[in-house]
């Protein structure tokens, strides 16, 4: 199939800041089996596929200059969501503020899910947000587990664009399916992806399926970059040779050497990297074991806007990475007492996810949360809902030492150590500020000082009764990655 299928208005990318170097794994275990991987991204204790999806989606919207209100469809692709059953796009939509009447869909089943989500977006009538996020896991002594990284990529897609100078055009798309059982799979109920490790068979499955999709596309053309599925840092180059794309183009379209296997997000992160470097013709080929591949050709006469936070800036040792992944976390202690029920948590999602405060109808001051009598004038005249800005100033702060956390937060401390807790004054849209208690995500253990500026991020708060709670935390501005 050829011809214009839609346009890409903007691309976002996100990967956790922590890196586990291949050398650290080799030192610890005596061997490192993931070819072409120099380091893998390790999620923080309070990050998962959904929080990374939100981070990438926010960046894609910002890059595209699209307001969240304009999003008419939200498509989420992932193989490692926190729940095997439960509509994940609903949580993502709430975190982002996507309209309740937007069309949503969830794609999984293999790492080709991102391609399927993109196909759905290109078929949609209006502005669609496509997000792929993953944090695969595997046995620590197997190649799949050692390659396992993390990340998320997002695209804002529309049928057409008013400003053709800033978009990428999807000129062709194609798919190819070939049954190859046993190359890479995860059994029901398991956290770990594995495979039989029949190397020649695995490579053939990947090569044949990717090449089949590219053939169906009408050949590789002469891309500046080829974002090929990267289960490790070596397979994309093997596939490149098979389909006739040079190593430079493959290299320009993969970040696997740095972040490892990002699952369904792999090719979107590759695309973000390629477009950010100015690629005018990009081949995008998500592949999923089993197997299926989808191929897209994206042409841009000029730069497609990209916003990404992918590069790592903190290195973990082997034990440190295992700790963050939860190897030494024995869960929430038994107890009783303080408790926030799921329905009462759900009632506050606009506040937890989007910092929705209220302007008192009587005195005009800002209230957070916007309910009950106004703390300023005691009136109960109601509130006009207003979203606080995502930046604020620390008013009071403490660092909670290990052992000092409420039980719900014990697993987080077991994985990531101390955290800070602060009262932050967030600015309102038309002046004024509201004070909000928030946790501070620490990269090194240095809490911000009173008066320091912080930025809101979405993270996991805690799990209770099997239900994960997400909410706003903050990162000190001076500790942010560029």
């Amino acid at each position, binding site marked *: 199939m050829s011809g214009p299928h839609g346009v890409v208005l903007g691309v976002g990318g996100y990967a956790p800041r922590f890196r586990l170097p291949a050398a650290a794994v080799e030192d610890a275990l005596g061997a490192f089996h993931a070819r072409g991987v120099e380091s893998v991204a390790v999620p923080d204790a309070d990050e998962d596929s959904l929080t990374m999806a939100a981070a990438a989606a926010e960046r894609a919207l910002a890059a595209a200059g699209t307001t969240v209100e304009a999003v008419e469809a939200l498509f989420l692709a992932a193989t490692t969501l926190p729940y095997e059953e439960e509509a994940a796009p609903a949580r993502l939509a709430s975190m982002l503020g996507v309209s309740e009447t937007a069309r949503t869909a969830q794609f999984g089943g293999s790492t080709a899910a991102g391609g399927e989500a993109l196909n759905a977006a290109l078929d949609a009538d209006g502005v669609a947000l496509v997000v792929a996020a993953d944090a695969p896991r595997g046995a620590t002594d197997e190649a799949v587990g050692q390659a396992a990284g993390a990340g998320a990529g997002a695209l804002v897609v529309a049928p057409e664009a008013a400003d053709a100078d800033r978009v990428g055009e999807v000129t062709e798309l194609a798919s190819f399916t070939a049954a190859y059982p046993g190359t890479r799979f995860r059994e029901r109920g398991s956290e770990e992806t594995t495979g039989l490790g029949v190397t020649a068979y695995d490579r053939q499955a990947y090569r044949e399926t990717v090449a089949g999709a590219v053939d169906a596309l009408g050949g590789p053309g002469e891309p500046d970059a080829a974002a090929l599925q990267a289960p490790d840092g070596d397979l994309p180059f093997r596939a490149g040779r098979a389909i006739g794309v040079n190593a430079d183009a493959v290299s320009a379209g993969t970040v696997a050497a740095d972040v490892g296997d990002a699952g369904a997000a792999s090719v979107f992160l590759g695309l973000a990297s390629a477009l950010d470097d100015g690629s005018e013709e990009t081949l995008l080929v998500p592949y999923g074991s089993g197997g299926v591949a989808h191929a897209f050709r994206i042409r841009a006469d000029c730069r497609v806007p990209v916003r990404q936070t992918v590069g790592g800036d903190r290195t973990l040792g082997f034990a440190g990475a295992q700790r963050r992944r939860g190897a030494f976390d024995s869960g929430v*202690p*038994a*107890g*009783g*007492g*303080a*408790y*926030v029920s799921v329905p*009462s948590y759900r009632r*506050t999602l606009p506040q937890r996810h989007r910092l929705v405060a209220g302007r008192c109808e009587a005195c005009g001051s800002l209230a957070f*949360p916007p309910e009950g009598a106004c*703390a300023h004038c005691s009136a109960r005249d109601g509130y006009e809902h207003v979203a606080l800005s995502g930046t604020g100033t620390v*008013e*009071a*702060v*403490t*660092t*909670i*030492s290990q052992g*000092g*956390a*409420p*039980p719900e*937060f*014990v697993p*987080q401390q077991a994985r990531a150590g101390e*955290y800070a*807790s*602060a*009262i932050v004054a967030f600015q309102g849209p038309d002046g004024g500020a509201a*004070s*909000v*208690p*928030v*946790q501070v995500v620490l990269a090194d253990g240095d*809490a911000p000082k*009173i*008066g320091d500026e912080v930025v809101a991020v979405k993270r996991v*708060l*805690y799990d209770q009764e099997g239900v994960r*709670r997400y*909410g706003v935390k903050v990162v000190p501005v001076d500790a942010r990655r560029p």
Partner: protein
Amino acid sequence: MRDAYVIGAGQTAFGAFPDESYRSLFATAVDRALEGADGLEPRTVDEAVVGTLGVGGRQIGLSGPAVTEYAGLSVPTTRVENACAASGYAIRNAVQAVKSGMADVVLAGGFEVMSDVSADAAKYWLGVSGETEWERLTGTTFAGTYAQMASAYLDEYDATVDDLSRVAVKNHANGAQNPRAHLGFECSLEEASGGSVVADPLTLYHCCPTSDGAAAVLVASEDVAESYDAARIAGVGAASDRVGVFERDTYTSIPASAAAAEAAYEMSGLGPDDVDVAEVHDCFAIAELLAYEDLGFCERGEAPALLRAGDTDLDGALPVNVSGGLKSKGHPIGATGAGQVVELYKQLTGRAGDRQLADADVGLAHNVGGSGGAAVVTLLEAEP
């Protein structure tokens, strides 16, 4: 309205007592209060008001009758829950009952058992009086909330971590003379400032312990009081505020404390200058500094100077927490407010033993619930 008097008061030791139950502890406190009132007969008591939080989940419903019936007081009993200010409020209710004429003798007290649950389970319960939906979900218990207030105080005023430690050094020195104190040992400034950090800037020495214990106070009308060693309840004031610190206009004051003090001073006709001895709510060291200012003992920001000058030492112009305070004497949540009044009653009636103050005529008790969602201030005056 007629006056109300304390005619007897007693408490158990505060500490960890695996062989005692919440009922046996309360009964001991009742016995000591009755003994203090020259063996007043239990049947003379008209009603009882009991404060407890219910840490551990023991008998959360009907916890009042559960202890008064055990202690042999078959009287109408009301349980008061205002977190750590529960029994301070119980005493206020007793004063209201006596002043109104509905009762002539009311037993007001409280109890808590906190040492018989795991450290992990205790944290579930220590958090229950914080603002649960928002504050707690940032990962704070009370140490964290008071630490945030301390951060704001140290940022705003000329105060240091050593000033927090001076509170601990003073109160431990006082508690070392109190045989019923939970942590009856002395500590040095270096130990206090160098202690392991619980929630920056608060170290372990800046935090009170979790204790078992009970306390009981007999509040009676003037007619009854004439026959006993009595201290007049000159005034009692109480106030509420937002439960979450983030919901308040200030983090360097506990507005409910200031409002409760103002009401108590107004009712009594007394002022901060008249106070000879005070038991203040020092659950965390910063809380004692805030109390000095909220209670009018000094101007805003001057609490560290007052402390450094020794004014609140045992031999100072205004001794504070001569019992050791929550810091050293201990903090069995529901018993703490009544325990403060037990100490004042002893001081004002000359029964304080080794730590008896020479000229104590007016005593002030200051009891705070949570991080300031409730506060109650009681002023006692010695009978001439």
